């Protein structure tokens, strides 16, 4: 399967030129770029590991691309995303978030059904990959 989190997951994987163009756009809006990675892509895992702090003072996409490359090199078999943070009053949140690296194979998720009374089912989603210990999930 292909995890479709992020703004552009239904498109073919973005090339570095395309990633760089999106970063240019975000910087032009005054947003700060952050790079994050994880080997636990559960839909409700909102805290991916931060590849350093968001780059608040960076104004050049090339600088952000250096961090993307460094993160890919250090964590080639994980999901990596680029986030853009907007500190404007009334937003103060992520404005753009897209995946720039994914593992070669994505085993997906198990939907566990716990049957309770009255035909109700309690659902739990489990990542097949996350059943292995952290760091050995996409080897």
């Amino acid at each position, binding site marked *: 399967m292909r995890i479709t989190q992020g703004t552009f997951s239904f498109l073919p994987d973005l090339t570095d030129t395309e990633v760089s163009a999106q970063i240019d756009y975000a910087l032009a809006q005054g947003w700060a770029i952050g790079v994050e990675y994880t080997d636990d892509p559960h839909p409700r895992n909102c805290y991916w590991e931060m590849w350093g702090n968001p780059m608040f003072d960076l104004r050049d996409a090339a600088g952000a691309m250096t961090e993307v490359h460094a993160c890919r090199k250090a964590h080639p078999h994980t999901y990596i995303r680029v986030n853009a943070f907007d500190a404007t009053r009334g937003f103060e949140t992520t404005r*753009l978030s897209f995946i720039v690296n994914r593992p070669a194979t994505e085993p997906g998720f198990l939907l566990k059904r716990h049957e309770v009374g009255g035909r109700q089912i309690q*659902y739990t989603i489990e990542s097949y990959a996350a059943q292995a210990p952290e760091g050995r999930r996409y080897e």
Partner: protein
Amino acid sequence: MGSTPNRYKSGVMPYAQMGYWDPDYDPKETDVIAVFRISPQDGVDPIEAAAAVAGESSTATWTVVWTDRLTACDAYRAKAFRVVPVPGAPGQYFSYIAYDIDLFEEGSIANLTASIIGNVFGFKPLKALRLEDMRIPVAYLKTFQGPPTGIVVERERLDKFGRPLLGATTKPKLGLSSKNYGRVVYEALKGGLDFVKDDENINSQPFMHWRDRFLYCMEAVNKASAATGEVKGHYLNVTAATMEDMYERADFAKQLGSCIVMIDLVIGYTAIQSMAKWARRNDMILHLHRAGHGTYTRQKAHGVSFRVIAKWMRMAGVDHIHAGTVVGKLEGDPNVIKGIYSICRDSFTKQNLEHGVFFDQDWAGLRKLMPVASGGIHAGQMHQLITYLGEDVVLQFGGGTIGHPDGIQAGATANRVALEVMIKARNEGRDIWNEGPQILAEAAKWCSPLRAALDTWKDVTFNYQSTDTADFVPTPTMAEA
């Protein structure tokens, strides 16, 4: 004039002379201000008509009453302070009326509206009356909860940023069994939509009772979430005959793990506010379908403009509101829709007469309301939708998903690809308004569901003149397509 003994002589007196017209009045920061479009009966002076509206929407009755003198009655009288002809509409006038904040109960849309759109709309000296806009003072706004979730928190909960959200309404609206209904939900969500939605009139009918629908829909939602790794949702409509029934349904939705429930505008302002508080208490996104609004918002001479309804709903506290598409099958002049969207989404809405926005409105930290565009829209219009409506909007393609020739999943995928490719192009600096069709055609080369969608609906447009247009443009505008 208000304090002289003659003012209180028994009998009938013009409203303007009773203290409801004051051209020198300078509205206070804390006043509620309303602007009405008034159409006086032939021979009725517009200023007297405006004063009558002020009177009938505040303290007046048809005759002088001595009991006014037991009160600080000047303070309680609404004051018409400005009457101007409507451009290009003979016999119609915009009348600005100020109301002291103490005329209204805190945090109550029911109380606000009982005055402002109460008896006055049936008043005989007027042929017609329309509430065009209101300025709500910050002091009064702060007594309202507002949207339980708001755009920012909704996006964080859903983990979806940088693009409009995608939805669809399950079709056919009526007749599907719960199990078949859930099938549509699963296919659409797995194919790429973020949300599927019950329609406004899906409650608990003989062909599908609500508990059964909720159970199947949550199976569909969770299965699609596991299949995609995304947070997914289905707006479970909890609209019912009584508050007790609605609470029961909403509690069941929560128990099943739904992230969103929906209500219809026809349940009424008080029920909406009750559900808003329930949603805030229960971490639930609250979707509002504006069923019924067209009966009083569409005609320009009489009723309440939808921008006012949108304002009231942001105060009452819903997270989603259907607010027009510009290009689809339902009423929506581009300028008027822009005005409504700014009321939903701005932190501070600037006066913009061309968009029908009569006042600056400071929203005082009230959360933002996500507009929903639905009704006769399809993937081929993506560049127009994004240009008109921006990013913080739910685009709902019901027929445009379910009617896809290759099935519901393909329909959903076509919409999602069209959306992502257009946002990507826009961010890259391309002129999507002009290059949109070409951008879609390029994507259709590698995405066969998009190709089939474009082939099927390429010529579908709904180019009818809008009835509800702004008055400060020379001619009514038509949606370009």
